């Protein structure tokens, strides 16, 4: 059975130790985490956790069931596919030699990124987009020399029905 990426999003009690229960479940049962994002929602008692995992069908069913079984997990959805909006964010510190500056700015423009900090030999670029877009962007900037990069995992929301 083929492994596929799944984006699992869940609302959880915003309490100490809850993230540890979830991460512990993944490590204890040998499930995989590709990325993880956590932050409070509008309700300060509730956080949203988004986890990207790679698993085959029966395994992802087991992962979802195990997560739902945790007392602190209020609601869980699999947001894989086109029914949801998905974004990642990155801050990329790229080496900006004079001869590369125009090219970098063109890429920034095409990818609708922003230069948020400029130094004599570098730019820090803020980028958001799908996982594919981020990958393409990184690939284009690589030849210029990426000094540092900080990326978030995927966050996602289900599209509201029209």
């Amino acid at each position, binding site marked *: 059975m083929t492994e596929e990426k799944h984006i699992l999003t869940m609302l959880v*009690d915003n309490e*100490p*130790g809850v993230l*540890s*229960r979830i991460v*512990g*479940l993944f490590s*204890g049962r040998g499930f995989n985490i590709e990325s993880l994002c956590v932050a409070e929602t509008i309700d300060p008692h509730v956080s949203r956790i988004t986890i990207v995992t790679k698993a085959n069908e*029966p395994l992802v*069913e*087991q992962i979802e*069931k*195990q997560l*739902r*079984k945790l*007392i*602190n*997990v*209020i*609601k869980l959805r699999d947001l894989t596919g086109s029914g949801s909006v998905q974004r990642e964010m990155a801050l990329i510190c790229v080496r900006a030699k004079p001869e590369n500056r125009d090219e970098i700015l063109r890429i920034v423009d095409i990818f609708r990124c922003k230069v948020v900090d400029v130094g004599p030999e570098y730019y820090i670029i803020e980028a958001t987009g799908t996982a594919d877009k981020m990958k393409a962007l990184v690939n284009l900037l690589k030849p210029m020399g990426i000094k540092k990069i900080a990326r978030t995992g995927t966050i996602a929301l289900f599209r509201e029905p029209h």
Partner: protein
Amino acid sequence: MKLTGAQILMEVLKEEGVDSIFGFPGGATIDIHDHLERTDIRHYLVRHEQGAVHAADGFARVTGKVGVALVTSGPGATNAVTGIATAYMDSIPLVIISGQVPTHLIGNDAFQEVDIVGITRPCTKHNYLVPSVEELPRILKEAFHIARSGRPGPVLVDIPKNVQQGTTNFKPKQKVKLKSYNPTYKPNSKQLRKVVDLIMAAKRPVIFAGGGVILSKGAEELTRLARSARIPVTMSLMGLGAFPGSDPLSLGMIGMHGTYRANMSTSECDLLIGIGVRFDDRVTGKTDSFASQAEIVHIDIDPTSIRKNVPVSIPVVGDCKTTLEVINSFLAEEDLDKLTDSRGPWLDQIEQWKQNYKLAYIQEAEIKPQYVVEKLYELTRGDAIITTEVGQNQMWAAQFYHFDRPGYFVTSGGLGTMGFGLPAAIGAQVAFPDALVVDVAGDGSIQMNIQEMATAVQYKLPVKVVILNNCYLGMVRQWQELFYEKRYACTCMDHAPDFVKLAEAFGAVGLRATRPDEVETVLRRGLETPGPVIMDFRVAKEECVYPMVPAGAPITEMLLV
């Protein structure tokens, strides 16, 4: 009503109907123990915290109530972990109260501080560190609710010392409100219609019953189903007693040390109805060939159990008892008489397997451990509560003692915890002071919690310990004999204490049998003695448990006597 945290704990324990607690005090539980002494709740002082949790566990298994253990912070709490993990694997409802250092010291590596909530996260159903005395009543009520509902399990509540001492307004009988926890008791009846159709159409059905049937108190409904639809029943180790072992439809235990007919019929059946089971590897052997000709129906209250280990055609999430009631009510509308004919050849085949390969052993000049268990069954007429340690003793108890009722077999199934049997027997005896409680033990396992003999003697709990003493860690030795070319690495235990003298040192009675003709006399004398007794049976050293399916092999590949 203004109460301290320790007083609130007493109030909630009373509200929850707790009459017995197993514990061991320490600096971080002095306040609780202090108040406990002033209530009607009986506190049994164990000799090691592992014993406290196993005793609470044994108490819970025979009563169906929530067992309660009370331990101190740090080493008290870490000593409890094996007991907690044991209960977790077997879905036993427990509330474990641990003392903790005061909140302002948490994280400072204070004396006897350990992050027990962190340590027990993967082996509890849920756990809490109580942040303030205001939160304590809600947390305690939730702990009991979570422990006993749905798929039961242990819940740990870690109470810092200043929370025990702090005061707050206590409102009695608070309702539990948990927005995210709502176990499914009521099964989907559409699914059950399909199950009934399968039952009516099946030529070779088998029911596979597990501990879930016992936990949901569904044994009667199961028996009704099996008898009315003429379906033979096999049981997991945890399921023994869910269906009468002496019933002609009983196939006995399934799996690695299951009966020949149980393993064969599971492999040949066309319908397997798993109820309250989790298809553990000791049951299925090689999963690809497990019940490979069958449609599998799986009924369990825990959705994670379903499709975890084996593919299932009809999943049913629900309480075992409730589900069995619905199936039985649907079946009542069917023409069950016609099953008498259609099941005939299948039941004949099973009878043939039964006649050809019975559970057996060869009598020799030495005492055979199976013989001791057989005699024990005979003399107690199946009326004893049997607890076991883990290993060969456990398997022989499961094979040669026949359990006709639920709650009479208390064993560590999932975790396989050596040292479980004696403290569990103590817990069972506390629950039923007049019952005959026997721990079937090995010489290895009994030494893991032998200190609890002192508890038994102190509280006049007349538990009987039957040691099948072969001077080996027998089950591992058996594997070494069969699969490691008889290299008995580290399994020879020929420096055990003299168990008779040891019993006497504890203030109990010790007896010994070294020849087969002494077995019955020693058993009789031991069982008739009023107080706790250790009976040391010097059995054949290199006896193996048969049948045996090598780990990972199909369950039809049995090594037989």
